[in-house]
């Protein structure tokens, strides 16, 4: 392989890594923005588990409820997939999903470059594995 070709490949890989880091940074920023808008972690402090049941869905603010109900229907999804259903921007859904993660209602798992969100119904691992097997 020629030197210019090797340099080209190496810079492409560095750029890819930078992009991934920027994506992660962007997601963290979105969470911080959401938290500053809607207050700090609302995770229950009364000893009860953070369960995304219908009564919890009812108590969520409208914008988060739409995201949470959509995720319940999809079982596991990326912010893009949720945005497809809600017809809102991906960045908006990403912010809402991350806020639901911080509230303890939704779990997040990174697979390669994609972040998957899901509602933990069974013993966590099993449900994710099942969801991945189907996808």
């Amino acid at each position: 392989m020629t030197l210019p070709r090797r340099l080209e490949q190496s810079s492409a890989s560095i750029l890819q890594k930078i992009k991934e880091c920027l994506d992660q940074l962007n997601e963290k920023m979105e969470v911080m923005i959401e938290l500053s808008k809607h207050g700090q972690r609302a995770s229950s402090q009364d000893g009860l588990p953070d369960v995304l049941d219908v009564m919890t869905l009812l108590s969520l603010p409208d914008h988060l409820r739409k995201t949470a109900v959509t995720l319940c229907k999809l079982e596991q999804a990326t912010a893009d997939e949720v945005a497809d259903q809600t017809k809102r921007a991906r960045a908006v859904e990403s912010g809402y999903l991350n806020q639901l993660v911080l509230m303890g209602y939704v779990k997040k798992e990174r697979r390669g470059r994609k972040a998957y969100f899901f509602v933990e119904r069974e013993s966590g691992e099993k449900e994710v594995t099942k969801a991945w097997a189907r996808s």
Partner: protein
Amino acid sequence: MGKIITVHSYKGGTGKTLLSINLAALYANKGKSVCLLDLDFRAPSLQAIFKVRDVEYWVNDYLNGVCEIKKVLKDLSQTHTKRGHFLVGLANPSTEAIREMTAKDRKWEMKALGRLLSLKTSLINDMQLDYVIFDTSPGLQYSSINAIVSSDIALVVSGTDISDIKGTQRMIEELYELFEKKTGLIMNKVLAEVLSSKSERADLTKQLMNSYNLPLIEMIPCFCDILKEGGTKVFATENPEHPFIKTLDQVATSIENL
């Protein structure tokens, strides 16, 4: 694409079960594939009406994660329809099962929501059913709200009693609107005199329009002969020419336009 329809009400005794059964049988008699599920775990009714023997699995078992939905369904096509498919899933009517279902915690209710939501895949996509009808408990019960969230369309049944109208109004504002569900209102057991008088009918319609921010699907009169049968007869199958079934036929058409 098939539809999941929840039949719900604020108060008990509004006629949810009668409407659910006959709507399901009506669809089946039109040649559709229909599944009726009893989600009223506090007062299960379908077992007493359909008298199904040798029930191995109940809807309770499906929600408990004990079995898949196919194991719960009983095929009543032979006895209850001349054309389509008519499947039912029964709620366990034993006192022990009712007690157990009323003592479930939030975590269980969350799992139950997941299992109800997945019926869209198993019953509509895989089994290719045209209609799935959920008959629910009245009021703001976990099982009923789970059913509403899991369905495509909700039918709210109300009587003309003021406590029913006010309660239903509040329930629509504080529950249905929050879930942005396609919803239609059915007024049931309306006095025949009210419906036959043009001015009284118009007054009632106006009052309902002012109370509810919902499309009024139908006003069904109170039929003494139906009450007399005491739930022993499925009119849509045994007496399809009955005016009640003719009215339900209009309900079925309106559902498509919601």
